[in-house]
């Protein structure tokens, strides 16, 4: 059993068609820790000690959020700025997160083909995530490929929300039960509900 900590961050939670059902599905999964960052810190006053405590008692840290301007919502950045302290997460004596896994579950408004040199986003999605990936590396953590839903604004009409939410639920359970194949995942740039590397399934 891996100790899974899910951080959910969405400033527009109430009107989110994809992230909200995802968050609700995550809350319904037993045996994991779910934290709604915008609900916990509505005034951006992060309790650093409590957050570090939470990190220490987890094996996998997963941030679920929408992609805002090729990055995370600002509260996650604030969280990173404050919680991943020098001497705790990195730098001299900063080895407390060693061996843990950092993962993101992202929704992107752009379609998959936009994140190509020919597409309007020009760069692959993973390129935009490189600051996060490097942050994990600096903190001696493994960075797992993100679980992504593209064209998220079209998803409700296209009928993608339900399978994406169900895939998210399966993903969280698999991580919890150690049946998520992080090694197989590492070979992929991103994972989607259509191809989740879960061992023992199918």
């Amino acid at each position: 059993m891996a100790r899974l900590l899910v951080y959910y961050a969405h400033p527009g939670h109430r009107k989110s068609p994809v992230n909200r059902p995802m968050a609700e599905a995550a809350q319904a999964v037993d045996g994991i820790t779910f934290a709604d960052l915008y609900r916990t810190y509505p005034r951006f006053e992060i309790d650093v000690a409590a957050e570090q405590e939470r990190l220490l008692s987890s094996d996998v840290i997963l941030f679920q959020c929408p992609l805002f301007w090729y990055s995370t919502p600002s509260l996650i950045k604030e969280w990173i700025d404050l919680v991943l302290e020098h001497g705790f997460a990195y730098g001299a004596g900063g080895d407390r997160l060693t061996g843990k896994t950092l993962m993101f579950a992202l929704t992107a408004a752009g379609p998959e083909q936009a994140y190509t040199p020919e597409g309007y986003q020009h760069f692959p999605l993973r390129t935009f995530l490189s600051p996060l990936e490097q942050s994990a590396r600096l903190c001696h953590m493994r960075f797992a490929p993100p679980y992504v839903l593209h064209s998220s604004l079209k998803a409700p009409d296209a009928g993608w929300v339900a399978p994406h939410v169900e895939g998210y639920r399966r993903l969280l359970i698999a991580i919890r039960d150690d049946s998520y194949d992080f090694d197989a995942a590492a070979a992929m740039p991103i994972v989607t509900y259509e191809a989740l590397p879960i061992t023992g399934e199918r």
Partner: protein
Amino acid sequence: MGELLFLAFVFLCAGVVAVPIASRLGLGSVLGYLIAGIAISPLLALFEVDVVSIQHFAEFGVVMMLFLVGLELEPRLLWEMRARLLGLGGLQVGCTTLLVMAAAMALGQPWSVALAVGLVLALSSTAIVLQTLNEKGLMKSDGGQSSFSVLLFQDIAVIPMLALIPLLALPELADSLGSAGPAAEGHAADSHGANDLGVGDHGGDDNREDGHGGGHGEMSLVAGLPGWLQALVTLGAIAAVVVVGSVLTRPVFNFIAVARLREIFVAAALLWVIGIALLMTLVGLSPALGTFLAGVVLANSEYRHELESNIDPFKGLLLGLFFITVGAGIDFNLLGASWRETLLLTLGLIALKAAVLYVLAVIFKVDGADRWLFSLGLAQAGEFGFVLLSFTVANAVIPQALAGQLLLVVALSMLLTPALFILYDRVIAPQYTTGEAREADEDVPAGSIIIAGHGRFGGIVNRMLRGLGYEPVVVDYSSTQLELLRTFGFRAYFGDATRPDLLHAAGIEQTSILVIAIDDREQITGLARYMQQAHPHVHVVSRAVDRPHVYDLYAAGCRDIIRETFDSGVRAGRSALEALGVHPFEAERKARQFVNDDRRAIAALASLYDPEMPIQDNKAYVQKAKRTPGCERRPPARGGRRLRVARGSRLVTAHFRGCRGGNAGG
């Protein structure tokens, strides 16, 4: 005097014992009163108490109830109800009358008697139904609204009925009655004995009554006037109620409010209701309808809740008395002699009325559980029935013996009504709730909010919430303040928010949040404590005057406590820091840190605080308090003022860096 005290004692005793028991058993207050009445009926018979005249006195409770119903109903809502009022109400009265008439004729009654019986039994009990619906909080439901429409129509329909019934007179009965004399009128004679204004002559004149304790006969403004003038006077009276109600009440109540004497306000409210009832009686209209209209006119007034809470106890007591007299008035000798027949007739009547209501509910698209509420709730005969029966006897329409039996049927059907409501509650409603539970739409502001006190504190809360589309109900004791609010279209009401009955009138049962924003610390604490005891489901946000007050409120069970000057003090401190040259964001962070430290400290101090002990004597508290932020003395800064600022500033910066930790970028 002795007799009056004895009567009051017996009635109060019966109510006080029976009603709480009935409520606890889930039977509702109405059944409790009815049972109390049955229980004391031998006693009353022993002392030869005139139950019927007490009943007619108590019927004034119905007048008050309709006033209160009117207060709840804005004119716009009444106008929206018109289709249901006329359609549903008209069809109910019409169809039920015809079917009962057919049944009576089938049982061998002549058509005129059958028609009178139909009219009498078509009416339902406003008192029982509205009281029960209010008690169960079903008044606003579709079924409740439909029921109310029908009851209101019945109230109106009584007036033409009273005009029609004398035309149905049986010659042979009229002969036996001889000249109209009170002694020969049986039930009617009792009914108008004590408080009413005399029976008078029922022959073709236009005096009318609807029976809600209204007078009938001699005192009249319109008797003897030509028809057109009568109509004019009647319309004039209605216009007077509307005009006086909407124009004159506000300055009058403002004038009274300044005195701040509660009893004068109660007296004024009673005066208003009784005055209208009197006026309506004088012009031959139903006092219940008149006060209902007066209520509607005042529905938008800021004094609405104050009026409600003042009239409500009188209404409650009078209605209770009325229900007791219904129970006590059941003639058990007669019932014993023909119980099988009476019971069959009663059940038949209920079944027939319920069937008509059910069909109408289908036609008017009253769905689900509401359809059953509507059908079962109105299936009894009502207090109008008593009055109409005495009226029919007096007018030689129905023979005395038949009237006696019908009286039993009416009373028995009223007695069975609470049982039907219990059937609805326990059996029918649960079947509909499972499928209908829908997810609340979060886009609509959910739950209602009451703000107690609209001064410098509550006003801000109100403005903020209103800006977001919520509609808080504001209760305040300052009539000038309220007038100002009213001009801006706020929902504001006059009254003392610390009074439970006013809170009740403002809808505390349906409220999810109460913001206590009044000035007086003792009153704040008292209200918070009362809320914790009486309405623990309501989230209370309370204003605290100072730190000890926070502890008092905490001890009272309040968990959302806002110190009234704390946040502004912090903001002033932050401004001072900025003016001293501290970087604005550092000043912000320092302010936040101060707030957080202080909050933590106050939680710790709350456990040490002893309300019985002056703070300076509480050593443990003082010790701890000395270590809270700001109380802790730092060594005075060396050097001049400017230097101190510079130092502080650097310290802040250093601390800030440490706190932030820096990231990979450094």
